């Protein structure tokens, strides 16, 4: 503000100082206006709307268009969801999946970050480029390729299991012929493959962020600790981790938010919304609302529950970012 006011005072302010000052005060708000309108109309209003919708019985698209009235059901939708034992399955799936994926992503990402920091320059560039490739791949294509690798007749994974010596394969898994094996049939296997796909997609971000953090730590600290005979394990927990604690905090929160609402990968891997035993909150909400018969109100209530869970995590995230902005 000072720049523009001071600078233009020479010409404009002399003519009409009062008018000039008012314009300076308004300009930033004018510039913000389009952005605020977009955020309010396309993000905040729908967020309020989803809460409102969760209190009505909406089972017909004509109700949405406004042709028919909306019967108020109060907390009826919530009662229906929470009273359904299936909701517990969905909630358990969501939480277990998020916990497992955040843990695996963080561990793998951190290890790769540490590794990149210690590799020679050429090797580090090569590995980092490959890691970037996984990150850059759209979720949709990544999932399709993994699905192809798990194809039950010509998929690479099926071939690899077939290539195991029959005796070993029998002893370990109780079968030697894997052709036609239903990789996606049991929920546990489905979630394992989904985890593989999601971790493959998300560890690069963690690795690159950890690496960026490591580069900012003075290397003398590590060298001094090593000279004193500390093991790598000790160096990490005693020096690296405490210094990078804020980075790790934010990464865990971001990963948690992302892994709680995985949709595309699951939708593509399961081939739609038919596989109910593997439902998680986001796909459950979608299926309630959009697979026939539509139940928009019920779907909205599930979406609200998902949002409330994420709100808790987000509160944590915002507090961390603000603290860091203050510190730096």
């Amino acid at each position: 503000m000072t720049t523009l006011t001071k600078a233009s005072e020479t010409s404009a302010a002399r003519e009409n100082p009062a008018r000039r000052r008012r314009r300076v005060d308004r300009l930033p708000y004018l510039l913000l206006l389009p952005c605020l309108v977009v955020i309010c109309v396309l993000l905040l209003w729908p967020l309020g709307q989803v809460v409102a919708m969760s209190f009505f019985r909406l089972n017909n698209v004509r109700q949405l268009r406004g042709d028919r009235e909306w019967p108020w059901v109060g907390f009826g939708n919530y009662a229906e969801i929470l009273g359904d034992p299936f909701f517990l399955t969905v909630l358990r799936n969501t939480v277990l999946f998020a916990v497992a994926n955040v843990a695996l992503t963080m561990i793998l990402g951190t290890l790769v970050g540490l590794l990149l920091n210690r590799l020679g320059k050429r090797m580090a560039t090569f590995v980092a480029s490959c890691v970037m490739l996984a990150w850059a791949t759209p979720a949709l294509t990544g999932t399709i390729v993994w699905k192809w690798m798990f194809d039950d007749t010509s998929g690479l994974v099926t071939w690899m299991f077939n290539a195991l010596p029959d005796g070993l394969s029998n002893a370990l898994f109780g079968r030697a012929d894997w052709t036609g094996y239903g990789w996606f049939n049991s929920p546990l296997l489905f979630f394992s493959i989904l985890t593989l796909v999601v971790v493959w997609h998300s560890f690069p971000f963690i690795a690159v962020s950890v690496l960026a953090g490591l580069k900012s730590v003075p290397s003398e600290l590590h060298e001094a600790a090593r000279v004193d005979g500390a093991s790598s394990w000790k160096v990490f927990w005693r020096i690296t981790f405490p210094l990078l604690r804020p980075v790790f905090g934010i990464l865990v929160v971001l990963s948690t938010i992302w892994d709680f609402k995985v949709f595309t990968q699951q939708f593509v891997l399961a081939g739609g919304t038919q596989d109910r035993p593997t439902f998680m909150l986001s796909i459950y909400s979608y299926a309630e609302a959009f697979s026939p018969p539509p139940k928009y109100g019920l779907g909205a209530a599930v979406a609200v529950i998902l949002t409330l869970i994420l709100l808790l995590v987000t509160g944590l995230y915002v507090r961390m970012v603000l603290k860091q902005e203050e510190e730096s």
Partner: protein
Amino acid sequence: MKRGTMVRRVALNGAGLLVALFAAFPVYWMIATSLKPNREIFSATPRPVPAHPTLEHYREILTGNLIPGVTFADFFLNSLLVAVSTVVLSGLVALLAATAVARFRFKLRTSFLIMLLVVQMIPLEALVIPLFLMIQRLGLYNTLPSLILTYLGFSLPFAVWMLRGFVAAVPKELEEAAAIDGASRFQTFRRILFPLVAPGLVATSIFSFITAWNELIFALTFINDQDRYTLPVAMTFFFGRDDTAWGPVMAASTLFALPVIIFFLLVQRRMVSGLVAGAVKG
């Protein structure tokens, strides 16, 4: 001691190669499969490298009709139209807002920044239902503008957050000098600030582009007519059939992913700094 370091180096490099293989292999396999003739794709022993590389699958998806009268090019154009419109709108609005935040100190500045952060955390998956309602009410159901509008909302918060750094990085003295020389505010903006922020605007645009280009759920829900499908929707449709033709699917996936991968690699550095917002220094 010397032997110890040798062993350690070999172990480190070995681990590096394993990580590289895990990360890059699926992308390689997608491209390799797309170039194999069918008898190699469906053979009992997969070949790591196509023995008889062919472009037949690309020819098939580019010339054949996926649905009567609709080709891959139509889906590609739908996606492109949606993504480019999103980029232009979101870039324009974000630039104005970023200028306000980076160049002015005003009362609600901090509140606005906090709101930007919070809004980015709204689970978009939870907005499918209310936005579906809005699109129905506006009469935009089954039109591409419904998607442009939706993606504008999704990409804007991150775009403002990222651009504000670029605007703040332009030295204020340049604008002061221009103002002293008698340039109007608009002229200062257009002649000084805009050219200097342009690279940042490009980087930001790429992120908006990727957001719009990759999105599946909303496109799946808001579009009904098959000739208006965007690429991701067309691919799930194409792919959801019983006997999966992996050759054409991999060729389509490659064509879909390639622009994103190239763009992404150009700007990934900004991504980290944008997301970790101040946590990572250096």
